[in-house]
């Protein structure tokens, strides 16, 4: 039996409650509120208490998809990324970087947001990057 607890931050609201994810034989089975965190002092709300459930949802995307003849079909990473790179650079080269728009994510980590805006700004020479801070 492999039983592990991993301390992390709740993925839902801006309170940022600290929790432990509990993993049993490779599967997340529950969350436990962190008792030492000054923010949540050993408590979680109903969302935090069930946060592990969506991670292992059978509906998770597990493979890149490419639209072919109007339908999204499974593809390899190589095929998907080379298509994205070639179409985006074609748009950039033909119309300029400001013809691209990028939406970043208030759910993703700081590191991912940092890299995403760097990618837009440095590879496309545009500041057309935003996220849903306004909602």
């Amino acid at each position, binding site marked *: 039996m492999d039983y592990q607890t991993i301390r992390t931050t709740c993925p839902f609201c*801006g*309170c940022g409650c600290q929790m432990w994810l509990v993993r049993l034989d490779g599967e997340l089975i529950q969350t436990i509120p962190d008792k030492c965190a000054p923010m949540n002092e050993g408590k979680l709300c109903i969302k935090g208490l069930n946060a592990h459930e969506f991670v292992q949802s059978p509906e998770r995307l597990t493979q*890149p998809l490419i639209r072919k003849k109007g339908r999204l079909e499974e593809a390899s990473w190589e095929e998907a990324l080379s298509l*994205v790179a070639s179409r985006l650079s074609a748009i950039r080269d033909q119309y300029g970087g400001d013809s691209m*728009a990028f939406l970043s*994510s208030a*759910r993703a980590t700081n590191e991912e947001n940092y890299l995403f805006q760097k990618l837009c700004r*440095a590879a496309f020479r545009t500041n057309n990057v935003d996220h849903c801070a306004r909602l």
Partner: protein
Amino acid sequence: MTNSIPEIEDADCIFVIGSNTTEAHPLIAHRIFKALDKGAKLIVVDPRKTQLAELSHIHARLHFGTDVAFLNGLMYEILENKWHNEPFIAKRTEDFEPFKAAVQNYSPAKASAICGIPSDVMHEIAALYATSKTSTILYTLGITEHTHGVDNVKSLANLALLTGHIGRPSTGVNPLRGQNNVQGACDMGALPNVYPGYQVVSNPGVRSKFERAWGAELSPEVGITIPEMMDGLIEGSVKGMFIFGENSVESDPNTDHVIRALESAEFLVVQDIFLTETAKLAHVVLPGACWAEVEGTFTNTERKVQPVRKAVEPPGQARPNWQIFCDLGGRLGLDLAYCSAEELFDEMAELTPSFTGITYDRLESMELQWPCLSLDHPGTPFLHKDRFSRGKGLFHAIEYRPSEELPDEKYPFVLTTGRRYAHYHTRTMTGRCPSLEREFPGPMAQVHVKDAQKLGLKDGGLLKVTSRRGEVVVPVTLGDVVPEGAIFMDFHFHEANPNRLLGTFLDPVSKTADYKVCAVKLEKG
């Protein structure tokens, strides 16, 4: 937030405006409960009788969208009764006179005629907020999601400056941010006008620093915001779009318009963890890893940077988002050879003064809130202690502007929208937590009992809601949570998403759309 969450507990007066805290920020509400136990006074300003309003000492049920008139009226009372903090105003603020002149137009009688709060109640609130030793303002999207959202926020800042309830523990002007890392996404420069740490793109010195660090030429032009991106797609000035972890089709107002925009894109890439309604429109969908599958950090609403740790492997071929970006960057001629999230964090911190003192190592053993200026800096639990970031605190003269779309004969009800306790946004995540689905399985609008009687509606019955943009059918609960003449809808459920009804009325400065006031017609469904 200017201050920290635990400080709320020791405030003498808590002024909550436009925030349904118990449902949207349960663990902040918990602090308010603790403060009440310690004897704090609670003022709730909200058209709806929220759970928190039931526990308040004073509940001001102002008319939808009249916050500026209400706040100006409050400040008139404070000045009239000399409850303002003269030494603080003299030492720490500027532009007091024009502000004072503007407020003079909002006598309690006049303000009350606009916002519907009786003048004696305004007097009572003014006294309580201004004369308590520590008063803290908490607000959420009920303040910002208006066509005058920026004016609302500035008015709250005026209120804190006028009374000196800022720059000390348990005071301040505190926006409670809705999403786990919306603070972090802003801090990291996922905004059209700033690089990480709010360093402006149009400043040549800042720009050349980033150009050197990133080895690329950068644009001096401020970029466009989400609503402008959508318009640009339809008009043809925007050709391609890359959406990372957002479900615009269901979260943005005026759904039909958004779908039309995304369908106009020559090329649309969506990177997400589920096949959202937005991803279904993409040319390419890239599967990312989710929060339990990566290392990194989130920044909460009190500016605290906290670790996110990997607990399990991503499913199938899904990959950590940052690795996808590195790979893509390479194919676009940019060298993004990072080995870890920590390496990314360190690069960001080196370029961002407010993060200079934060490292993964330090986060292992302590709590750090930015600004954190050096490796021995303890972080900043509350801002503006001895000076404001711009030096002096600036007063703003603000005039009341009505909301864009008010009820009329054809559309006589006000629609307002918000969140429910068991769900989060478009339910991409919470809808796939079976326990939360069981707890709160479907949409439920709220209407006042008296309106229901006139419409012949029963509790649990179906209601057809129509606006100038579209119609939605939704079950209702009756009660007195919303005032007469209004309807509340949550935005969690695809089948009854009020965003289909909303227009795209934007605040002229922030470009935030109005999610709180929209005119609708109600009929039995």
